[in-house]
């Protein structure tokens, strides 16, 4: 484009020069339509972001759990095992297996041998006899490690082969300092905030029921004079904002139960396209009574009335508020300073109300509450599965990050409304967890 030369037809060049700086002002309608589309795009973009973050987090969680499992079952055939010998007391130099719980994870995996932080180990060690026995078998060689700390060289015979050669290269040492899964049950309270995508999976079932029910944007339709004769509607992808408080406890060594209370705010865009039929009579004539119209339907009355059809396209922002009660069961894969748990559960959603807004102005057009016989069910159920990643920040406090997927089991709208919406979506929650014991 824009390559003009002298060998081109001069007629073409004249036109180009004449129209080069042409400007015509478009109607305002164009920008209004663009602005609406950008609003829809904004929601789609957010929804995609939630899905993307959740997918990445799930991949990280899966890779961490697979790696920890692999580390727990692998063997190492090397001859040299290092233990940090910063402790001056020779009786503390050696490491022994004391935790025989069938744990998974880098540190817990070696249920017969631990070779990491001796100080930490010694604090955890309960079997003094075993310590002495193993001390007698070891030699007292020292080597210099790449981190410039002194390590004691251990004899191979004293060490059971189920060791982890490269734990330190895989995980930061700080992940491994905490004692692994405790046998005694523990409980926690948590606070999480986050969001998710909201894919409404909108489907029209019965157009007549939908017309009778007033459709999605009934508040908007009420303002129209005349009869709505056709309706074409759609719910577009939106987003959820969530805040949750929860309580949880271990019910068996690795199994947990968690329940909570959530407030969910769903925002999405609804499109309605409806045709309004309006019957009017010329000014000079008085409108005939209904009985007259009935009698003369096939005669002259038809000619007396003027029927106009008006097609209206509406896009509205719909904000739906839910209070939800999630109940989840989980299985702990890793319980170190870094913890990993897989959850699945049932969420009961209580509809609180919804607000329709114009995309241009944020003032509510119409508000519905749960007792207004709204088009949404008062109670609906959905399933949720996810992965909870935790990191021990302070003695009793974890920070958590939870990618999840939610699928509704039923339509969130009432069955007689003529359409259904069975939403699903990927989400991410982040928060803090206080461990009571």
């Amino acid at each position: 484009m824009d390559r003009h030369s002298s060998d081109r037809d001069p007629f073409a060049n004249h036109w180009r020069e004449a129209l080069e700086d042409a400007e015509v002002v478009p109607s305002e309608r164009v920008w209004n339509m663009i602005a609406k589309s950008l609003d829809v795009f904004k929601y789609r973009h957010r929804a995609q972001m939630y899905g993307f973050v959740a997918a990445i987090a799930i991949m990280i969680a899966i890779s961490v759990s697979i790696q920890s499992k692999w580390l727990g079952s692998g063997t190492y055939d090397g001859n040299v095992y290092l233990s940090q010998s910063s402790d001056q007391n020779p009786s503390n130099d050696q490491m022994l297996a004391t935790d025989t719980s069938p744990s998974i994870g880098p540190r817990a995996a070696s249920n017969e041998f631990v070779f990491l932080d001796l100080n930490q180990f010694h604090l955890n060690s309960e079997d003094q006899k075993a310590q002495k026995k193993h001390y007698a078998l070891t030699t007292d060689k020292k080597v210099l490690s790449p981190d410039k700390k002194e390590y004691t060289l251990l004899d191979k015979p004293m060490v059971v082969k189920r060791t982890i050669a490269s734990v330190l290269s895989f995980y930061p040492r700080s992940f491994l300092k905490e004692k692994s899964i405790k046998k005694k049950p523990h409980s926690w309270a948590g606070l999480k905030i986050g969001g998710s995508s909201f894919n409404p999976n909108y489907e029209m079932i019965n157009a007549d029921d939908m017309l009778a029910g007033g459709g999605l944007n009934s508040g908007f339709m009420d303002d129209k004079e005349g009869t709505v004769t056709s309706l074409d509607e759609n719910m577009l992808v939106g987003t959820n904002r969530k805040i949750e408080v929860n309580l949880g406890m271990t019910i068996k060594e690795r199994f947990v139960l968690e329940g909570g209370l959530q407030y969910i705010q769903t925002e999405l865009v609804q499109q309605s396209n409806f045709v309004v039929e309006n019957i009017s009579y010329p000014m000079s004539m008085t409108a005939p009574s209904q009985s007259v119209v009935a009698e003369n339907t096939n005669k002259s009355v038809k000619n007396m009335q003027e029927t106009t059809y008006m097609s209206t396209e509406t896009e509205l922002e719909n904000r739906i508020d839910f209070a939800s009660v999630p109940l989840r069961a989980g299985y702990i894969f890793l319980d170190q300073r870094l913890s990993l748990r897989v959850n699945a559960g049932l969420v009961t959603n209580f509809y609180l109300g919804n607000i329709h807004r114009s995309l241009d102005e944020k003032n509510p057009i119409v508000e519905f509450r749960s007792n207004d016989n709204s088009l949404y069910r008062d109670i609906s159920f959905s399933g949720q599965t996810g992965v909870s990643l935790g990191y021990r920040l302070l003695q009793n406090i974890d920070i958590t990050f939870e990618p999840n997927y939610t699928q509704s089991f039923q339509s969130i709208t009432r069955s007689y409304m003529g359409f259904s919406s069975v939403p699903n979506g990927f989400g991410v929650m982040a928060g803090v967890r206080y461990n009571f014991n």
Partner: protein
Amino acid sequence: MFDSDKVLIKGCKKHKPRAQEALYAKYSKPMYAIALRYVKAIQEAEDILQESFIKVFQNIEKFRGDSSLPYWIKRIVVNTALNHQRSKIFLYPMVDVVNLDDRVVNEDVFSEFSYQELVKMIMTLPDGCRIIFNMYAIEGYKHHEIAEKLKISEGTSKSQYSRAKKLLIKMLESKNHIKYG
């Protein structure tokens, strides 16, 4: 690129509504004039403009500044217009009529018309030759490039341009009551 364009691009990349509106305000008028040249009806030009600016905002992150911002937007508008018109090009068979009109029109003639009038003349051309006239005369494509882009023969492109030229000269003559050539 002007600094103000850089600021607008930065804002649009962050999906800031004010930046988007400012960018639209700055470039919608010349782009609408381009869209009008490709269509017969104003409604269609508005659709092209709307679609083009949505594409601009959705793809602004891909804009690396290799060309100027107005040139990049113009390319989007032209491509959108061509996509809109593509179906029409094939509805009407383009017959190769190699009958190139070599009449010479004086440059001064154009100064007697406003660009709105000139745009209206282009809008009245038949679909096929209107598109080719726009691409060749105003956008600066060569006939073999047009042929490749529209999947037609080079001869068709030339003959359609010739037809457009003939019709436009007739329009210029009739509106100005002057005989050219």
